[in-house]
């Protein structure tokens, strides 16, 4: 099997890289947007952006995934700009005939509602804390992997995560929100 580093060299390799890591990036984009349809387009954009930036790739433990999470974090943060930049490419995407999410539509709607409620609290944190929580807690990256994704020292990841956890604990103690009780 080709390594991620080898796959980064050619368009065909990038296609394989998408099949290898696309699902993880898709779910990460959903958790940052609470929108499954947008997450699909954003996942595509992450790999289009990654191609542009492939010279600066960082391979960690033989995988490009942490670096791709970093690209995804920037794409989501600058969502409108990213969508504009790649709109033409997305418009060339062949559309299929199958109905969207036919088999699990209700569950996905419920996912989106739950995720919106979570993000409601989440958005009160500084962006840098949101990023480290999303990567380390939701996507289960190690401190080292999150450091690669965010381009910061490992110690910074640890301190940001500790602070964000502390602040969220305060919120949960103090915030009787309707979402929690569902």
């Amino acid at each position: 099997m080709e390594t991620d580093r080898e796959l980064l060299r050619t368009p065909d390799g990038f296609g394989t890289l998408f099949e290898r890591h696309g699902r993880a990036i898709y779910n990460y984009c959903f958790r940052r947007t609470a929108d499954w349809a947008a997450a699909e387009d954003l996942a595509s954009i992450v790999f289009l952006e990654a191609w542009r930036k492939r010279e600066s790739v960082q391979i960690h433990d033989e995988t490009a995934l942490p670096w791709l999470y970093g690209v995804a974090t920037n794409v989501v943060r600058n969502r409108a700009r990213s969508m504009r930049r790649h709109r033409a490419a997305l418009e060339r995407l062949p559309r299929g005939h199958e109905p969207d999410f036919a088999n699990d539509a209700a569950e996905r709607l419920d996912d989106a509602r739950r995720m919106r409620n979570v993000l409601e609290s989440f958005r009160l944190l500084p962006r840098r804390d949101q990023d480290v929580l999303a990567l380390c807690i939701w996507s289960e990256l190690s401190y080292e992997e999150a450091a690669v994704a965010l381009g910061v020292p490992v110690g910074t990841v640890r301190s940001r995560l500790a602070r964000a956890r502390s602040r969220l604990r305060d919120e949960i103690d103090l915030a009787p929100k309707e979402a929690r009780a569902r």
Partner: protein
Amino acid sequence: MNELTVPRDRDFPAGRLERRARHLVSELRPSRRRRLWPTLVPAIAILLVGATAFTAYRLTRDEPTVLESIGCYDRASLDANVAVVSPGAGGPVAACRRVWNQGAMEGPEPRRFAACVLSTGPIGVFPSTGSGTCAALGLADVSSRALAEARRFAALREAIFAKVGAPPSGLSRGSSLCLSEQSARRIVRQELDGRGYSDWTITTGGEPFSPERPCADVSFDGQEKAVVLLSGTR
């Protein structure tokens, strides 16, 4: 951390991963059209994008875009502890005063507060020693118009909760009302129309209504301008 438990991972819908992989490859292969494209972008397009971005920046800086919850900070710092609370009809500052009155924050209750627009969209309320608190944090003051809108939205929520039933929370067990989807939909529509929210829609989410889950719960989605009815039990 149960509130932050996120939905489980899902696969792409059937066939989409492969289709998008093929699309990605086709986009990345060199083509005459895409090589020429950058040279065809006129400078005016760059100016338009810049103007659009600047407009969006101003709008998000000056007006809150999330009204469903507010953040009460225990000191005038973005690194301070924050309590997330639902807005009340008295406005964001009154809602945060209640948090202080309940003894949920450490230290004496500040005499003054400043309501600022957080960079992520909601309103943040900070202890203040005078004017310029928001500016010192790099944030915009919430305009009086936005404060009025926040109070109006909070009044809508409270009116709907009073008639359809408030969901349980950390401080209350919730309402014992059990309205059907149709009854809840009718009441919510009346409140929306009567309070100037006619452009809002009513949708359903989660598990379908059924004899086992006959009672309507209400959730608000300000960004989608939608009231979401969810099936539940009592």
